[in-house]
């Protein structure tokens, strides 16, 4: 977060209990999208609310509150109905958004390079792959090359879908935006060589003492 604030982002917070409107609708995630199914999302109190599945609704709230140019980052717990060796029902994300006039994909690339180099050093090799997120278009996933020569997915990013900007009352003919999101546990696992994501939540002093 310190790194991102040094780039000019402002930290914003939002609730972990969200509405479907902010978690899905405003982000261009259709009613029929599989992520909205009961087997993927935790709903509460007779489906009146849900546990946020990503930190993106915080950005929606931020965009509704302020006018461009704006640059937010939000971090925190997110929830998905998964529970196995590689997925947890709760994990942490950091997402960032920057909306201004003439924000382009090539600027997004510049920002991502800066983030990755700061996290993994200037020698790390990375690649951008086209991907799909309903809230960004074009969308990309970014991989870094491990010491073993394997490409490892590190973050998702893209230009904010104009539909999302319009949903937040931002004129998409004048403004464009970039957004990125990364999983904290995933970055920590890659950085520290942790192989089992569950270790982060066992509260084991043998584990915790290694990172103090």
């Amino acid at each position: 977060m310190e790194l991102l604030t040094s780039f000019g982002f402002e930290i914003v917070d939002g609730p972990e209990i969200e509405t479907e409107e902010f978690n899905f609708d405003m982000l261009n995630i259709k009613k029929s999208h599989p992520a909205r199914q009961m087997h993927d999302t935790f709903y509460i109190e007779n489906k009146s609310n849900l546990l946020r599945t990503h930190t993106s609704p915080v950005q929606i709230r931020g965009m509704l509150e302020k006018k461009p140019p704006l640059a937010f980052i939000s971090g925190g717990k997110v929830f998905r109905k998964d529970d196995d060796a590689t997925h947890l029902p709760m994990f942490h994300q950091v997402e960032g958004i920057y909306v201004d006039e003439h924000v382009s994909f090539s600027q997004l690339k510049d920002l991502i390079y800066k983030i990755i180099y700061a996290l993994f050093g200037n020698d790390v090799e990375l690649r951008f792959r086209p991907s799909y997120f309903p809230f960004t278009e074009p969308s990309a996933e970014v991989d870094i090359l491990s010491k073993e020569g394997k490409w490892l997915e590190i973050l998702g990013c893209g230009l904010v879908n104009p539909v999302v900007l319009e949903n937040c009352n931002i004129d998409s003919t004048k403004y464009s935006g970039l957004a990125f999101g990364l999983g904290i546990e995933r970055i920590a696992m890659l950085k520290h060589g942790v192989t089992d994501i569950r270790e982060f939540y066992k509260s084991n002093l043998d584990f915790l003492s290694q990172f103090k």
Partner: protein
Amino acid sequence: MKIAYRHLVQHIEESPSIEHISDKLFQLGHEHEIDGDILDMEFTPNRGDCLSIYGLLRDLAVFYTVDLNHKIFSEKLNELQLDFENLSENICPKISFLKLEIDQVPETYKNSLDNYFKDLGLNKNNFFTDVSNYLSYETGQPTHCYDANIMSGKLLFHEIEKNEEFETLLDKKITLTGKNSVFSLNDNVINLAGVVGGKRTSCSSNTKIVIVECAFFQPEAIIGKSVKYDIQSEASHKFERGVDPECHDKVLRRFIKLVSDHANIKDMSIISYKYKDNPTHQIPVNVKKINQIIGINISEKEYLNTLSKLEFVVEEGFIKVPSFRSDIKTQNDLAEEVARVIGYDNIATSKISIPNNNKKTNHKAIENKLRFFLLDHGFYEVINSPFVSLSSEEAIKVDNPLDSNREYLRTNITYSLVDNLLFNERRQKDSIKLFEISDLYSSNNGINKKRKLSIIASGRVGENYKDFSKKINKEYLLTLFQEILPNEVFDFKLVSRDLLDTKIKNEIVSLEVDINSFSSDILFYKEVSQSPEGFAQYNLISDFPSSFKDISYSIKDYSKTQELQDLLLNYQSDIIKNIYIFDYFKNEKKEEIKIGFRFTFQSNKATLNSAEIELIYNDIINKSLNISGISIPGL
């Protein structure tokens, strides 16, 4: 989806290697793994159009000379007389049926049909189903085959909302519940639309007359059904992602061609129902906008040339989106097409500069100060799952919990920390100081949120000679907090061990407090801990029990104290997990320093036996006694 390299490359004039195709597929955003000659593809959910040989070739056509003209039956077809009614035209706006009769069921397959089963190692089913499956692989359009001899009566497509038993052609009995789009024959469900057909009307190895159904279903009507009924369905995978609504005639004529390659067709007829036109989506040509979105500078000619290779048509200043690309709606979508073809990695970066004005800088300042204060005093921060079984009346219930033990959201943190404490005590930890900061939610006239700090501590104050003999109690924690927050009152509580599964007697002290209740006095605290400069490499944690040994030294020559500490605190062994000084006393009268070291032994591979520990223990003693002027009393 598995695609055989040779099924692709036979349509590509340049005959590229699998590695070359693989590079291009990654550039286009089609993730995959290579297993021998098989490309195991994983497409993004917006690219349902790529779920076939021809779909993938359409994308690869931007890089290669691709032949997309497969052989089809091109002669005129008679109209099929079918008693069919569609009561849900909005779900199925287009559907076609083909009826075919062959003289004999072929025993062996030829050409691409044969290669399909051989190269992908697939099991055959029956002739018509096999052709249908191959056609789905080749064109991306699922078709369903009914045995025509069983299909007498009225065929109905409709959405039902009633419980109904249905036996799939995979011999699985399911009960349809809620809303389902189905085909019914004489009021009996024979097909769960877009997901799986029924056993009663399915083809067999003897089927010579078939009715082939080729439909477009709205993805919204299909999504979630295969998961709901636990059915592995390639058809639903494709319908959920959207198929080409304009492909029916071509697909069914290809079906006829494949059948005619294997058997004599005695009779055939076709009928198509189109209830709603599929409007061609049009986007104005605006290369300036495309350049602005991507941050490049390509010419209009170059731009339109790229799109034409992807089967977009330009007419009168508009770009017409092909019917199979339901994902393309905006200029941003077109920009992504151009960016993919250029290659994301080939797009140059342009410097970003985010204006830094009016930004709040004191985000969670109090919380962060508290965090540092606790870390400085030997506490560890933990994070626990919010899902619990037992909770207060105000706890929020999860509609769809993972299991009955995780049905509610916790309303306090302390219970989680008690579990953490017991977990560590079972791992022979005797100095445990933990804290957690978390939002807590409860339901009482609406959803209430509180951000709380919770602390738990038990055992020794610290693993050092100053704190080794001191036990954690309320007074210790009160003193700690009052040093920095003298004007605040803290309600430290003792947690009873009566109901806990433990024999340890140390007091457990806890505190749970609203973060907002802290005054800004904490902001004056000067933290000692700093963010690590580098990243520590994680050492695997052992689940085997640990044990410890203490060695106490007498040092007459004070100058040797540091040498002894350097030797012991840096002693390396695979089975030593921790070393610290637990006792230190300088006796001026006797001119002697007494210093005690504690060594924790633990293996990652097995429970250690005493001989393994003694070996290392004796080595430590021997090396330390080589330092002149020190001794081990009682040795």
